[in-house]
């Protein structure tokens, strides 16, 4: 049988090489087609992506726990080393905050009184969904996070995501058990904001750097480094008045904003469930 087998191999080899080449070319076409379909924002591609992420989520979730524990351990060691100075700092801060608390109470009382007098409609209700960060996009082209909470937990697309310090981004993709946050530093992020105090409107535009730009500031707007930026709530996606960051630099007419969020320490974030009462009412009318 040997000669026959040799003949078969001689015949089969080129066919196999051909099949490999054909498969290779086919895969290249598949990748290009996917890029085009992704650019066209096809729903099919998005569904495929969210399903794959949903499948990978348990693994990522399990693996991210020890990392979080490791960081907490490191933090503990750091805290022990600076126990004395940290205590002093906190005592001073506590004094300052106590003063602020008195002021805030007074203002809240006044505010409630005025609202009552003027019959002001109160803002929309905001509730929170807390979610664990299970994934972090690496690489220079995107700035996103994966959260271990999705549609089943009440998250919907477009909702704002905040950390303890400030705004993080918004929900861009939604799976059953996972969701993807587009960080406010990402190239595709555009968030309507206000300069606190002066109430100038602007758009906070991410460009993949750590410090997003302020765009569409009114002509003649007076801005200086240190000015606080908050969400404006325009467009109805984000609740107004949430802290975003401070203006860090003004160069060549471009104002850059240093976000309050500490990107390295995002273990847990909150998704804001925020419904515009007006929109809900009109939905009920229909």
């Amino acid at each position, binding site marked *: 049988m040997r000669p026959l087998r040799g003949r078969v191999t001689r015949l089969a080899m080129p066919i196999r090489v051909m099949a490999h080449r054909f498969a290779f070319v086919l895969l290249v076409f598949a990748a290009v087609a996917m890029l085009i379909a992704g650019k066209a924002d096809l729903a099919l591609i998005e569904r*495929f992506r969210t399903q794959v992420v949903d499948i990978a989520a348990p693994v990522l979730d399990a693996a991210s726990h020890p990392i979080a524990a490791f960081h907490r351990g490191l933090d503990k060691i750091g805290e022990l080393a600076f126990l004395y100075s940290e205590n002093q700092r906190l005592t001073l801060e506590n004094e300052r905050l106590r003063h602020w608390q008195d002021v805030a109470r007074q203002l809240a009382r006044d505010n409630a009184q005025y609202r009552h007098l003027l019959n002001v409609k109160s803002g929309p209700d905001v509730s929170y969904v807390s979610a664990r960060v299970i994934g972090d996009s*690496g690489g*220079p082209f995107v700035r996103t996070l994966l959260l271990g909470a999705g549609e089943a937990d009440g998250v919907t697309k477009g909702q704002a995501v905040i950390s303890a310090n400030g705004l993080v981004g918004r929900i861009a993709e939604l799976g059953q058990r996972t969701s993807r946050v587009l960080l406010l530093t990402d190239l595709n992020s555009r968030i309507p904001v206000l300069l606190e105090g002066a109430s100038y409107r602007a758009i906070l535009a991410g460009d993949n750097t750590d410090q997003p730009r302020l765009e569409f500031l009114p002509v003649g707007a007076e801005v200086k480094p240190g000015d606080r930026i908050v969400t404006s709530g325009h467009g109805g996606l984000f609740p107004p008045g949430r802290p975003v960051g401070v203006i860090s630099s003004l160069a060549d007419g471009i104002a850059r904003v240093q976000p309050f969020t500490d990107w*390295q320490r995002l273990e847990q974030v909150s998704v804001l469930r925020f419904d515009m009462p007006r929109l809900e009412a009109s939905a009920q009318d229909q």
Partner: protein
Amino acid sequence: MRPSLTSQVNHWVRVTVPGLMALGLLLIGVLPLGLPDFGPIAPVLTLPAVYFWSIYRPDLMPAPLAFSLGLLHDILNGGPPGLMALVLLLVQGACVSQSKVVVGKSFVVGWFGFLIISGAAHLAAWLLACIYHFQALAFTPVLMQFAVTMLLYPFIARLFSLTQAWIARVEIE
């Protein structure tokens, strides 16, 4: 003669180990490691995996595997779908066809080969991302990412060559 069960299992293990290792490296890349300023320059760890295996054991890193690893990378990182799939596929093709240049040479030659392939891959990824977003993206983070990948390569390659020796041992038994 049908191969015994042990040898079948052995065969199955050696065929899947490179792919599983690459998958593990891919997942490490997605985890929130919380290293300061690391995110934007985090290396694509599947790149050395695809390079190494398609040069030294092309039978264990076929084109569909490279494609799937790239696609999973795109999906988990939230990048343009198909970008890294295309890049890793081209890396696999280039390595399989040029493996003679590197195989049997010293480690430094392998590293130099990776320098060229990885440089071309980073450049290709950057160009594709620029076309995808219709704008010139910053190149510095890509260079940094390239440098980090180059520095990590010796460690990853060492791990792989140990695995390769182990697979060869299993094959003989």
